[in-house]
């Protein structure tokens, strides 16, 4: 079983559209893991059935027990998020402002502050409309993705792939290089970097290349919308060459991605364009590279 993570550094480069395309090509052989939980959108294209769901807890939130509280006000003084408000000498935590640092519970002289586990959302195991299995999550209002949630989604996808003897785990990672991205990379076999020829595309690509190199994860890159700025595109190609990242493909700007998105479909289900041929070749190339690794 091979685990392939699709990440981009910069958001909006076409990551999810390309993950959905690869999933269309791999069919049920690939278990999908949507780890871009902050702005999850793979479900819009894959229409999972939300078959099995489980609550997910991450981080803490403080709560004041009014029966124990002696209204000393120390928690209000030390809370740098101004999350504790006092009305008519009744102290309460404003849940959206609390960051869960726990300082209030530490200074409370009568132990009136309880740190509760925070339910941030739910995670699901679904079957998609294309008959593949997808592990994904939905966050509650005002909560955020975390390395822990990514680890959970990936672990579950991996377990299912092993149990059902599937060939791939295909991970839709989140943008950036922070905690959720590091968590989505850990233990994976290959990273597909999706970029675009813009200054921020190039800048964020450099950062993500540094990260995959640090983790010794082999990687390849697809330059999407490559004709938007040919000069920057060739600069990116030069960078890939120098940093030992395989250049998988260039895709010219094509509104087939938008049309597919509006229809809630993958680009393969829309009228034929050469984008499809490029993506078929790219998927073949990725399979070839990961096979060489001996897996």
């Amino acid at each position: 079983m091979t685990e392939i993570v699709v990440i981009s550094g910069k958001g909006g480069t076409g990551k999810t559209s390309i993950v959905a395309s690869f999933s269309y090509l791999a069919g049920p052989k690939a278990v999908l893991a949507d780890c871009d939980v902050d702005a999850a959108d793979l479900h819009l294209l894959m229409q999972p059935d939300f078959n099995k769901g489980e609550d997910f807890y991450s981080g803490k939130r403080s709560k004041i027990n009014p029966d124990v509280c002696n209204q000393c006000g120390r928690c209000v003084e030390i809370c740098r998020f101004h999350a504790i408000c006092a009305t008519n000498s009744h102290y309460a935590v404003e849940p959206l402002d609390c960051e869960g640092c726990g300082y209030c519970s530490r200074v409370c002289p009568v132990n009136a502050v309880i740190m509760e586990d925070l339910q941030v959302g739910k995670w699901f195991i679904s079957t998609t409309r294309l008959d593949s299995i997808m592990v994904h999550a939905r966050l509650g209002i005002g909560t955020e993705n975390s390395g822990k949630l990514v680890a959970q989604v990936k672990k579950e996808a991996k377990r299912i792939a092993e149990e059902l003897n599937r060939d791939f785990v295909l991970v839709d990672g989140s943008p950036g290089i922070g905690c959720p991205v590091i968590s989505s990379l850990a233990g994976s076999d290959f990273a597909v970097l999706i970029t675009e020829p813009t200054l921020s595309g190039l800048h964020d690509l450099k950062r993500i290349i540094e990260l995959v190199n640090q983790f010794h994860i082999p990687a390849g890159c697809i330059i999407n919308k490559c004709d938007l700025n040919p000069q920057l595109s060739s600069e990116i190609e030069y960078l890939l060459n120098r940093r030992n990242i395989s250049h998988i493909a260039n895709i010219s700007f094509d509104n087939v991605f938008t049309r597919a998105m509006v229809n809630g479909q993958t680009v393969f289900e829309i009228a034929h364009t050469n984008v499809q041929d490029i993506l078929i070749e790219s998927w073949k190339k990725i399979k070839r590279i990961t096979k060489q690794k001996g897996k």
Partner: protein
Amino acid sequence: MKIAFTAEETGWDSQMDPRFGRTAYILIYDDVKDELAFIDNRENANAAHGAGPQTAQKLLEISPDILITGNGPGGNSAMLLKKINMKIYTGAGEFCVKEAYQAYQKGELKEF
């Protein structure tokens, strides 16, 4: 010499954990005494954020000579770990602990 491993369980046959920050256990092998001890890291594995630096903190306390792991620590943890004189070897994520140790002895792992 003390050698630390990131592992999913606590014995020599345990699968290595490719993760650094969210590893379930840290195993410590003392090759002079020929003793294998372990530290439960599951609380860090469940941290919402900052799992890496918290695991790094534990290693700072143990202060082993060598760490053998899968992908290696992320940026923040790597910066912390530079402060102790510990060598990090990566690429052992798919071995069991015993195989990882043998691979290290044969010089097959990459220095981080």
